[in-house]
């Protein structure tokens, strides 16, 4: 044992040595590497423009295709043949907020696509200054933002934006329309700018058409027929556009994130198919190449079913009644001259031109022409042909909701619910997707469901 002075000196020396040894290097030591990530503040950098714009497309592609698949099951386009109960609930239109399948397949990817497009548009305006107003990259981001909002409005009962309070479909449509209008301005300026290269001019023209179709689609959903006609007419009557012109989301077999989800759902090889048209209105439809399918059943994950092949909007469409399998790299058209034509036919109602258009589409499926139909018959036939032409391309849920809202026509499946696995005997009554649980949990501006 020792007395006080040496002890204090020893303690002081030891403490000083310890602190000197460790404190100086502490800050550097606590700065660790994270090679898998880019810090948010570093993204605010013009060097990232290409990656950012690619990110807008990269988020929208899987969001759109997955939404097209699951909304196809939710509506009458497809029936479920998967054993997982969440898929059954989607098919039955009885989706609980805790259903993770639709949350991960529809809501979350659409929100990611919307956020990325809005964020990139904002960054581009910051990076490019005045020139942003005539830059095709901004026009592209605005277009994709518009379509992300449009799909959210068509699919969701309501949806919050950026962690805010819930917005109604009309509010979401309003934002979509604003994005499309901005895109039209920017694409028009880019196209008419003398300094724009030929390649960028072609892109600007294409993006302008895309924005016009989107604006027409939203206007139609909002019941603004005149606006829909105004936006759709330049597209539908543009002689420079081939009748098969369309804007696509592309897929690739390179990585799983790029796969067309319809491949796994309806052409998944030996074991994975889990959707069919058995138990849908198309079960007995034969001879229409727009809803191609074999005449015999295939083995699915849950029993045998007639499984559809590639319809008109898919790059693997081959025009035959049997059709071709979906592939991992099949692209999907999500805006087309044909769609613009349908918007005109619905917004204008029956006239000679539109009846001729309708009969031309009926002929593809082997249906006889309508002669002087009533307006109701005309609209019913138009709805039927639109359903076939735009089959599995993400339109059906928005269409069914619009038919109820504007025309009081309810085409949702009701009554007995047929399922290959045990399920409640009747369809539910949902006409849109509820906000999922994850949003309620993480968004403090939403009251509990």
């Amino acid at each position, binding site marked *: 044992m020792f007395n006080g002075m040496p002890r204090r000196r020893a303690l002081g020396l030891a403490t000083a040595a310890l602190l000197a040894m460790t404190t100086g290097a502490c800050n550097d*030591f606590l700065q*660790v590497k994270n090679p898998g*990530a880019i810090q948010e503040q570093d993204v605010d950098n013009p060097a990232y423009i290409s990656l950012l714009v690619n990110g807008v497309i990269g*988020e929208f592609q899987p969001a759109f295709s997955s939404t097209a698949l699951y909304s196809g099951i939710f509506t009458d386009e497809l029936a479920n043949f998967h054993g997982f109960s969440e898929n059954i609930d989607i098919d039955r239109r009885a989706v609980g907020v805790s259903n993770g399948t639709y949350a991960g397949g529809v809501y979350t990817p659409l929100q990611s696509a919307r956020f990325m497009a809005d964020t990139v548009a904002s960054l581009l305006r910051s990076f490019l200054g005045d020139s942003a107003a005539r830059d095709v990259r901004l026009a592209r981001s605005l277009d994709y933002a518009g379509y992300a909002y449009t799909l959210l409005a068509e699919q969701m009962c309501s949806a919050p934006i950026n962690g805010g309070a819930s917005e109604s479909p009309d509010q979401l449509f309003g934002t979509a329309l604003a994005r499309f209008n901005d895109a039209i301005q920017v694409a028009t300026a880019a196209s008419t700018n003398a300094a724009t290269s030929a390649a960028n001019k072609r892109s600007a023209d294409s993006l302008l058409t895309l924005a016009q179709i989107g604006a027409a689609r939203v206007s139609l959903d909002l019941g603004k027929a005149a606006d829909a006609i105004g936006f759709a007419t330049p597209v539908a009557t543009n002689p420079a556009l081939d009748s098969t012109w369309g804007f696509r989301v592309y897929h690739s077999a390179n990585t799983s994130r790029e796969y067309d989800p319809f491949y796994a759902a309806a052409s998944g090889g030996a074991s994975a198919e889990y959707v069919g048209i058995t138990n849908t209105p198309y079960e007995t439809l034969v001879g229409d190449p727009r809803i191609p399918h074999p005449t015999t059943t295939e083995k699915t994950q849950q029993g045998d079913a007639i499984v559809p092949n590639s319809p008109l909007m898919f790059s693997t469409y081959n025009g035959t009644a049997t059709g071709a399998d979906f592939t991992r790299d099949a692209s999907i058209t999500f805006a087309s001259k044909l769609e613009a034509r349908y918007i005109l036919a619905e917004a204008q109602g029956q006239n000679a031109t539109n009846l001729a258009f309708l009969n031309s589409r009926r002929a593809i499926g082997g249906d006889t022409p309508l002669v002087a139909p009533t307006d109701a018959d005309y609209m019913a036939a138009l709805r039927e042909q639109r359903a076939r032409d735009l089959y599995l391309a993400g339109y059906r849920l928005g269409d069914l909701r619009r038919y109820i809202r504007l025309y009081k026509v309810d085409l949702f499946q009701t009554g007995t619910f047929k399922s290959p696995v045990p399920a409640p005997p*009747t369809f539910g009554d949902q006409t849109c997707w509820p906000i999922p649980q994850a949003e309620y949990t993480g968004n403090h501006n939403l009251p509990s469901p």
Partner: protein
Amino acid sequence: MPLYPGCQGKAVNTLLTQNPLIQLPGGVRDGAVRSFAAHVRGGGDRYSYYVSADHNYEEGVLGNNYDRRRSLRSNFSFAPTEKVNLAVNAGIVDEHLRLPLDGESAQGLLFSALRATPGRFSTLPGQTQQGWFTVTPDQSNQYDNETSTQRMILGATATYQPFQWFHNRLTAGLDWTNGLATLFAPPNTPVLTGDTLGLTAQRVPRSTLYTLDYNGTLDYSVMPSLVSSTSFGSQVIANQSQVLVGTGRGLGSPDVTLIGSTTTISASNSFSQNNSVGYYVQEQLGWKNRLFGTVALRADDNSSFGSNFNAAYYPKASLSWILSEEPVLKSVFQTLHADNFKFRTAWGEAGRAPEPYSATRTYTISVATMGSGTVSALRTSAFGNPNLKPERGRELEVGFETDLFSGRAGADFTYYNKRMNDVLVSTAVAPSTGFRGSQQANIGSTSNSGIELGLTYSPVQLKNFGWDGRLSLSTNHNKLLSFGDPSINEIVPFASYGSVQQFRVGYPLGGFWGQVPKRNPDGSLVLVKGAIVWDSTVGPAFDPANKFIGPSTPTRQISLANTFTFFRNLSLYTLFDHQGGFYNYRGVDIYRCASSQNCRQLNDPNFPASELPIYQAGVSNAPHAVYIHKADFVKLRDVSITYTLPASLAARTAASAASITLAGHNLALWSSYPGPDPEVNTYGYQNAITGSFNRGDIYAMPMTRRLTASLSLTF
């Protein structure tokens, strides 16, 4: 072949039951267990050593499951002078593990068995065996997932005592792990891979953990009866892990398994780094070697904290008092036949840092598909939380320990009360933010209290019979005290399956909640359109408000271990274990009813038809409360008989001692839980305070019974 071979000759309304795992060929097996161990210990005046080697091999009950583990450990210490001591320890572990597809995998045999219908063929194409839902045992066993892991642990400790009053200890450690996991599915095994291409993949995880720990202690006698001990020190921890993954699809031949030989190759890697630094100072005072008091302060910082945080400080204090040594109390304790009665109490704070990188909002690089091909694209990654703080726990412990009746019995009692503030919980990121997944957040406060009581006894000690035992009892009650932030919703569901487990203020953490069916006054079910569904025009056929069912973790545990010794050489050991006051979610039954229709309720003709809608409801509409069951149980964990050979007999084998043991583990279960084992958890066993304690019985493998025989020789 008839569609339902198992139904041939059966009368209508005959309930067919089958356990494919046991009744069908190739289901489960009796796995072999082998274990060898050798230990050597020795030393001299200034050195000592210890070397041990172990070899363990254990087969699982599934045909493609085994674990082989070999280890070598050694310690060596050397004291070159009176003031210096050096110690080195080293360990090497070599493990080879083959795992089956388990849990919720549709290609797993448990899934296939639990979802099967007797006599019905699998839903997969080309199946020739009935009684399985997806894969057959042969197909399941083709799944070849093997992991080889080498782990090396090195440690060195130097102690230096330059003066009698000054002790120094410096410890450095390295924990290095390197693994290789291989996954192989030959061509034409679509039931495993979903296609006929075949797959070969490798995963190479590697982690290193460096630790450096210094402690200095200064001893000082303030007065003859009062001794001071001042300690201070620092700890530095650096943890780094990385994983490299390569996958090849499209094998031309099952004989060529190199990834580079496949038609489609993909690769990825990950990296994680986490560093921490801590300092502490402690003062302990001892009075007459009977009363000891300690106060200490610790400061920690960690690389996972956000920019809005500097360091965390944790104080602690403790007091222990050997009351039976106090002259004025000695007679009292003698009257009570108590010796070495020590009262102790402690109060302190401790903390836990967030997960690595959880503070920062980040983007990452993904892909986008253009008409011309695949290009790089930016994508949102972690949402991040820059305001993260450490989770702080404040705990008070009070207890005592004592010997009783001259060592024939003993008691050890502790009451603890722990309050956690700023609890780190993984909570969902709102998708509307544009980000996905979860983020860590400091959410509110929790409490955790209970007692731990241990009683040892040796009631009978005769020449030819002895009885020793230990009774352990513990209770634990936790609950959420507050969310802290009033803007946070009252409910934070986090379970993988909906909201059957929830955080709610005033209730146990991760407790089970479930919706219950609505009933009419006469007890019959309320139905909507003939079923238990939610209908927005009519309302739900179940109570939409979740009802609290009970805790998800045991609130009491009792274990009773007894050893009976006969004629000195023969001993019988038994261990009974009870856990109670908790519930488990038998989620697998929802899928059996809703998706496979093979649950008893839907098939037993004697089951009341009026109750069928409960089990016909889909998962989303299911009244989950009916699938949450009380999980109390008593298990006979261990029974063993050991015979120690007489020394004269052992000497014939050149050993100084020898014994033979026959043991059985998990031999009996008493429980009302409807599944095979109330203790299982599909999500593994995790810390109940971290917020990541999902619990569910969903295609989980129950604990297996084990019988072993062992021989121990000492030379």
